[in-house]
């Protein structure tokens, strides 16, 4: 790991000034992705700006019909939050099966979404639950946030401050967990609120996406049977040592049906 200067601002404004003033500075949240990246020398920032000391960025609250999660809230705090468990149990479950307990004590929702690993869990939740990414500059709807492989709508000097999730009537998350890392080979978050149905898929493509055809079928009948002939489009999906794109397409169908049955 190359050396860098480390800063631990107490205020968001200080962090923002630091990131604008230093061209090669990077934010560090839980460090669960960033520190391994630095160890491999895949990045060599001049400065690391740690958000851990900014108290406003941590915690879970209910605001009207939305659950608001601070960007620096760690996975374990989402998994065990009474507010999340009572209002969106599918989201608590998703957080409880990210990586392992030590990773869940450090890794954060903001870090996961800023990184947008194709196999990460939270992107599936943001798409499937129609969440909103709130930054120091603006609010970004789920559908406008994920742009491609490790690519999001975030600008270099933009910091995620919180994530807002409307409370659905029903929702469930199913994932085919990679047995070694825990990451999603495929993960599917399904939700229903009134006539609105959303199917968010992660793990399968370059970034999280919706399955519109399934959503239309489920809007007519919210049953596993209604989507029994649908699966992912293999041409758009990833192939790697863990799985072919064909298998991922198949898993999208299986996991979506399981999620609908569980919701």
């Amino acid at each position, binding site marked *: 790991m190359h050396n860098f200067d480390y800063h631990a601002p107490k205020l968001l404004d200080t962090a923002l000034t630091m990131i604008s003033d230093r061209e090669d500075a990077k934010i560090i949240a839980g*460090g669960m992705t960033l520190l391994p990246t630095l160890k491999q020398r895949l990045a060599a920032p001049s400065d690391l700006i740690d958000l851990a000391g900014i108290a406003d960025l941590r915690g879970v609250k209910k605001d009207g019909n939305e659950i608001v999660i601070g960007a620096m809230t760690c996975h374990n705090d989402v998994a065990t939050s009474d507010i999340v468990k009572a209002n969106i149990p599918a989201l608590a479950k998703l957080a409880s099966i990210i990586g*392992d307990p*030590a990773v869940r004590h450090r890794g954060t929702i903001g870090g996961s979404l800023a990184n947008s690993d194709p196999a990460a869990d939270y992107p599936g939740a943001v798409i499937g639950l129609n969440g909103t990414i709130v930054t120091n500059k603006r609010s970004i709807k789920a559908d406008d946030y994920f742009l491609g492989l490790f690519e999001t709508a975030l600008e270099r000097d933009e910091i995620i401050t919180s994530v807002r999730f409307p409370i659905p009537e029903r929702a469930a998350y199913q994932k085919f967990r990679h047995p*070694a890392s825990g990451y999603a080979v495929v993960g599917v978050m399904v939700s229903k609120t009134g006539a609105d149905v959303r199917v968010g898929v992660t793990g399968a493509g370059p970034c999280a996406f919706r399955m519109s055809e399934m959503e239309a079928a489920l809007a007519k009948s919210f049953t596993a049977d209604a989507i029994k002939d649908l699966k992912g489009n293999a041409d758009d999906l990833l192939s790697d040592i863990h799985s072919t794109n064909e298998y991922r397409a198949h898993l999208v169908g299986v996991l979506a049906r399981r999620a609908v049955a569980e919701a």
Partner: protein
Amino acid sequence: MTSKVTLTVNGKERSADVEARTLLAELLRDQLGLTGTHVGCDTTQCGCCVVHVDGKAVKSCTMLAVQASGKQVTTIEGLAAADGTLHPMQEAFREHHGLQCGFCTPGMVMMGIDIANRMPGADEKTVREQLEGNLCRCTGYQGIVEAILSVVNPGAVKDHHHA
């Protein structure tokens, strides 16, 4: 360039000069001489380096020493009483043969205590899931799971060694 970091390790205030890139595991082992915390992979996979920071299990190979500034760190060396009496989790590992070569053991014991703190009464399946980030290359998981289970949920232990 180094800077001074001050933290509480096993109940005692400790200070050291570290580089920004110094890992907590390196501070503990190389500068404070606490070599009970092991580094097995250095890639956040194996859990041999697990310590508690403010009471929570973390992988010390994936945290900067400067990030532990002002925090309470507990390592395997901090568990036994001053007179050498083992912590109940250490005693359970001895009783249930929860180690072979011992390399993974400090991390396993620290994670075992974390599981006991977070989920008292957990069943065997849960304990196994909670050990997902702790690898034992001697693959002696049976004894490890029994040891942890004997502390978190004594009724659930099917003891193979003393039946």
